[in-house]
């Protein structure tokens, strides 16, 4: 594999950038693999990468129905954070933050990791108290958290509505300084390139149509490009999880919902952080191109359509305008939607299944992107060792039977109730 550096950039400039290697191969599927990952999104690519790198399982196929970078990994608002209160979430996502910090070097691919800080605004004393509690829990788990007062906030986000007439006055905020953003498609491409270089076959336009199971053990999968055998199969398909689970006669504790995001026309830099609105559900950051990247609530009803509806967008943006009044003058450039695998307690599942050799990774709700490295890292461990890692042992499927829910926000699929 060609190493990317300033020298290779200069060298290739002399040939008008016509001689770069292809970034990953387009292999024909083999008859059998040591492991198959269904779903070539961020989590699937990261899983295959860590299977090869950490567990030396290189004979791996990633089966992707569409193309690399075309699903939720290219549809999110690119936010990274580990500002969770419960240990199960905090420790898991914090391990992810540590992976993010070195990802560009590790992948030799610039993922544009930008730890610009994520600010959760509080709009009442009570909210400030709950944020302080969460901040303290985070610090006990070794995660960075600071409380900001109104005066400090005026200095770092001067365009927020600090007026006396604000419907939701800003009381203060919880900030995770190491939170931030990364370029999402670079994450997909970077993982794909390295996984491919270690022997992983990335097979695009290959839809899984069924599973071969005998005696309670997985034997392989049926696809639109023929049957492929494997004793280990990992399901990593986010919004499509229920559709594949149905082929195994499994019902899962998730609903598919569409979540929209949008970007404005590019403007000069005016927002240096990721900011979330505390009196509703709205978050925004400014991309390097100058666009405001914004998102908020689900549309609110089961949906497999990768596009949303205007009432939700209007609702979300009205919250944005309440927070930053000057957003009202911006034109929207693009809006889009992605299908979220909304779990019933708002937390993911990374676990074995009742079928030997079949592993599950789903339920990412709004927050799949930030989990990309750590989800892949722990899922690879779960597949390679046939048992969960300590970091994901609480993300069990049977927690919905035993009652050990990880209800960080107390909302599941019906997030608008919370």
């Amino acid at each position: 594999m060609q190493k990317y550096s300033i020298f290779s950039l200069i060298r290739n400039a002399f040939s008008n950038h016509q001689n770069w290697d292809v970034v990953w191969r387009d292999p024909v599927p083999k008859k059998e693999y040591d492991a198959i990952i269904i779903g070539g999104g961020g989590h699937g690519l990261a899983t295959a990468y860590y299977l090869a790198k950490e567990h030396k399982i290189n004979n791996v196929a990633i089966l992707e129905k569409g193309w690399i970078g075309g699903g939720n990994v290219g549809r999110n608002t690119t936010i990274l954070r580990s500002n969770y209160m419960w240990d199960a979430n905090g420790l898991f996502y914090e391990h992810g933050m540590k992976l993010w910090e070195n990802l560009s070097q590790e992948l030799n691919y610039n993922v544009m990791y930008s730890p610009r800080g994520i600010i959760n605004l509080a709009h009442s004393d009570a909210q400030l108290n709950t944020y302080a509690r969460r901040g303290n829990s985070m610090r006990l788990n070794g995660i960075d958290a600071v409380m900001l007062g109104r005066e400090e906030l005026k200095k770092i986000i001067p365009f927020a509505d600090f007026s006396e007439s604000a419907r939701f006055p800003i009381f203060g905020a919880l900030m995770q300084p190491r939170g931030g953003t990364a370029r999402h498609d670079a994450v997909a491409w970077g993982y794909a390139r390295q996984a491919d270089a270690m022997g992983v076959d990335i097979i695009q336009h290959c839809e899984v149509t069924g599973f071969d199971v005998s005696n309670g053990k997985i034997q392989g999968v049926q696809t639109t490009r023929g049957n492929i055998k494997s004793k280990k199969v990992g399901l990593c398909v986010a919004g499509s999880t229920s559709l594949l689970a149905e082929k195994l006669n499994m019902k899962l504790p998730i609903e598919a919902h569409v979540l929209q995001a949008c970007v404005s026309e590019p403007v000069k830099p005016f927002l240096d952080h990721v900011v979330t609105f505390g009196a509703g559900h709205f978050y925004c950051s400014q991309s390097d191109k100058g666009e405001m990247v914004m998102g908020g609530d689900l549309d609110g009803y089961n949906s497999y359509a990768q596009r949303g509806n205007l009432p939700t967008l209007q609702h979300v943006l009205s919250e944005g305008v309440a927070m930053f009044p000057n957003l009202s003058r911006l034109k929207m450039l693009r809006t889009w939607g992605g299908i979220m695998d909304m779990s019933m307690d708002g937390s993911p599942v990374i676990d074995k299944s009742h079928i030997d050799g079949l592993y599950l990774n789903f339920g990412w709700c709004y927050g799949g992107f930030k989990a990309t490295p750590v989800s892949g890292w722990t899922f690879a461990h779960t597949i390679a060792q046939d048992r969960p890692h300590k970091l994901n042992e609480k993300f069990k499927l049977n927690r919905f039977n035993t009652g050990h829910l990880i209800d960080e926000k107390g909302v599941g699929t019906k997030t608008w109730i919370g």
Partner: protein
Amino acid sequence: MLEIKCPYCGNRSQNEFSYGGDATVKRPSLGKEVSDKEWDDFVYFRKNPRGKHSEFWHHVAGCRQWFKVSRNTATHEIFKTSKINEEI
């Protein structure tokens, strides 16, 4: 925007409604011995189909009645709506 036909008020804009989820889920009957699994299935587990889906909606900013909608989750086409006690 969805236009939903409330069985009581007729066609109204989506803005007047809120969503109540899968209408095929049956609450275990009262007074009967119920296994943990039956409860878990009722509370958490869903078919979550791509395509035809029977669901509850609430005309919350209208007549405040709950009713059922049969809708395609991939195209958002609404096939039929009915009162809560009617089959859909």
